[in-house]
């Protein structure tokens, strides 16, 4: 009996040893989203071109599906699994930009996707409106009052279809959760035109932003909110693509020298920004030493102008953060996400993606709107904020499919 017991013990020990060495790891399946205090049964997104899913200066179905609200909705299992966007068939409205090659000097050749732009979206508007109500060019005031317009894209008509304002259509859907991504268009003209005078002041923004949130609170009193702040617009690829110095055979006898480009005031000081449209002017000689013409002011942001714009962005973000705190909304730090990307890049699977124009992978080919991967980062920042605020455990968006 004692021998029998010893043998059993030895066999059990051997089995334990082998089992310990051979244990196997099961795959981790995507967990079901737990939304905590947030209710995604009726999720509506309002916002600008970023919410809309504009990439590469156009709206097209194969890129709209990567718009951050669609990614968030998918991760959260929102709207019963059917988050409706006004999907536009290829080549898009406007036809999206694509990189088709390189010039002999190594610059990217960017052209519109071939084909005829469709008349409108292929997805019929649901009776209460699209779940994604983002509209390119929308100001906060537009969300409250605008119902049509803006040729040639007519994005307001494309989304709203004459059925009322963005905020009205949002409320009509009795939303349980709303993402609000507004504020950048109040400032972006300053960057696109190189002039801070085009910005809407902080007090005016605060007033209209408060009015918008009040409207939501009144019209959709049970809805939880996530507010997205504004990225530092002077760090967009549109404003950083062109370096201040050019190196080439510009010296005596064709010697290679480095030249600091100039505007009417002289060589641009460090910290200046040259805007993307200057890419058309520099090959014509603009910005080189006299007698060549200087870069026009419309394509240059001086350091003082940059400081003014950056301060305005910070002021807006302070207003948005205060509103989030006051109203118990989650705050998605879009600015922080892209600031980290601008500073060090974002490493995904061992590959570092940056905010560099065309080659960086985080901005689309217009230099203003995020790429699909950029939208993935925004979506995950939104989910991080919602999870933290609502006690939710909504799994993050997989980024790998957005890089393939």
């Amino acid at each position, binding site marked *: 009996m004692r021998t029998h017991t010893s043998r059993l013990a030895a066999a059990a020990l051997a089995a334990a040893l082998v089992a*310990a060495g051979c244990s196997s790891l099961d*795959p981790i399946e995507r967990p079901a989203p737990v939304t905590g205090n947030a209710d995604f049964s009726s999720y509506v997104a309002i916002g600008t071109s970023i919410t809309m899913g504009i990439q590469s200066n156009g709206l097209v179905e194969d890129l709209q599906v990567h718009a951050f609200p669609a990614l968030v909705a998918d991760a959260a299992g929102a709207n019963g699994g059917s988050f409706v966007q006004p999907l536009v068939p290829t080549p898009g409205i406007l036809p999206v930009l694509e990189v088709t090659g390189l010039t002999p000097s190594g610059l990217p050749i960017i052209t519109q996707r071939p084909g005829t732009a469709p008349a409108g979206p292929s997805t019929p508007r649901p009776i209460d409106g699209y779940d994604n109500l983002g509209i390119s060019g929308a100001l906060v005031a537009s969300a409250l009052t605008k119902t049509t317009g803006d040729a040639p894209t007519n994005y307001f008509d494309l989304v709203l279809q004459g059925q009322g304002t963005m905020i009205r259509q949002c409320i009509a859907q009795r939303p349980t959760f709303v993402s609000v991504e507004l504020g950048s268009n109040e400032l972006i003209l300053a960057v696109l035109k190189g002039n801070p005078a085009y910005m809407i002041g902080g007090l005016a923004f605060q007033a209209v932003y408060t009015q918008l949130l009040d409207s939501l609170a009144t019209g959709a009193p049970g809805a939880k909110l996530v507010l997205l702040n504004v990225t530092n617009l002077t760090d967009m690829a549109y404003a950083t693509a062109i370096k201040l110095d050019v190196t080439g055979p510009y010296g005596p006898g064709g010697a290679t020298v480095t030249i600091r480009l100039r505007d009417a005031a002289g060589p641009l000081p460090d910290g200046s920004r040259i805007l993307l449209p200057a890419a058309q002017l520099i090959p014509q000689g603009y910005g080189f030493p006299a007698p060549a013409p200087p870069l026009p002011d419309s394509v240059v942001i001086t350091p003082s102008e940059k400081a003014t714009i950056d301060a305005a962005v910070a002021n807006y973000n302070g207003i948005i953060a205060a509103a989030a705190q006051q109203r118990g909304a989650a705050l998605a730090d879009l600015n922080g996400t892209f600031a980290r990307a601008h500073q060090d890049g974002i490493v995904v699977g*061992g590959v570092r993606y940056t905010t560099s124009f065309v080659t960086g*992978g985080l901005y689309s080919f217009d230099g203003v709107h995020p*790429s699909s991967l950029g939208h993935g980062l925004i979506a995950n920042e939104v989910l991080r904020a919602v999870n933290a605020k609502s006690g939710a455990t909504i*799994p*993050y968006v997989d980024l790998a499919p957005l890089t393939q």
Partner: protein
Amino acid sequence: MRTMLHRAAAAAAGLLVAAATDAGAAGFGLYEQGARALGTAGAFAARADDPSAIFFNPAGLANVEDRQLVISPNLIYYKSEFSGVAPNPGYGIEEETKGEYFPPFALYYAQGIDQKVAAGIGIYSPYGLQVAWKDPDTFTGRTISTLSKITPFYFVPSAAWAPSPSFRVGAGATIVLSKIELHRHLQAYNPLDDRTDDIGTVELHSYTGSAVGFNAGVQWWPGDARWKLGAAYRSAVNIDYAGAADFKQLPTGNATFDAIVGAGFPPDQRVETAIEFPAQASLGVGRQLSASLYGEINANWTQWSSFERLELDFDQTPSRNLSIPENWDDVFNIRTGLEYRKGGTADWAWRGGYYFDQSPQPPEGVGPLLPDSDRHGLTAGAGWRNGRGTTVDAYFLAVLAGERSTEGVNRDGYDGTYQSGSMSAGVSLGLTFR
């Protein structure tokens, strides 16, 4: 003479240290240095009394009489699995290393010089690493690592002195030879196709690097020697490696993009790196629990905090230099085991042991290069001796490395959970020449 010694040692390294893996001890430590000790989970610093004492505690060499040779081959099976999570590589992704067998072994020779002094030499690998991922061309972590391999080889002449029957001291020099090999894929964002493509591979193969260190130890077996106490120390060794970096461009299917990549693709070139194999210290307490039963417990400390960064310096394309933060922590492991030998004099002995080995690796570093985790080891072993100086010992070790999550903070943006497991078996053949 020095060159000859160097060449001989290098040849021995190539022959003996065919491969190693991070099987037996956390980080890239290896404890499979003697079957007798492994039967009790490596708890041997207090009792080490045969030539394998050169590894476990050089003071124990003073117990050796006559001339003794111990040959300790091992067979290690190692496998690591990975399950991904969002944001990258995503849920449902499964990866695994090649399940591979490795045959590291140790060799010891020692002889008593007089009643109080003995000397010997040991050849072994207290560290080693090989993590080779299956299907490297499609492995989702291939830009981080598809193969990492470190094969150090310690050549350790040692001597010990017993000033009294109960007290011994020992020390030795460690001459270390080592190679390192790292493979990975290169990827880049391709704006022409708006996707990320594999653009090439890089394989780093070092030449043999060398360095010198030391080990030392004491043993005290007070009174009637029912209690045994031991302490040992192995110094850190820093090895500078030089080697060749072989870059190979891969076609992406887009000739225009391939031309752009090709214009800036790095050439094959010289690369340099350095690795410090950390200092280790052991403290052992053993007791003869009965006439038949002996038990020992060891606490081992490894100064892994010396592994701060893995630097790779390319001589032609310094823009590709890498400085990978590792920031490991100093850790302890606990090893304990029992040996049953009927009446204390029987020819056969039966052994069992357990150890817990704490991982030195912070979660941000847990990745394809080295997915480390806490480990639990269970060992069983047996020994036979013929009373005329011939011994045969054998052990079996199962290592369960617990699941290790990257906690969403992996420095390469490659998150998920790893689980590694290994099994080792080995024998030690001891021969005495009088």
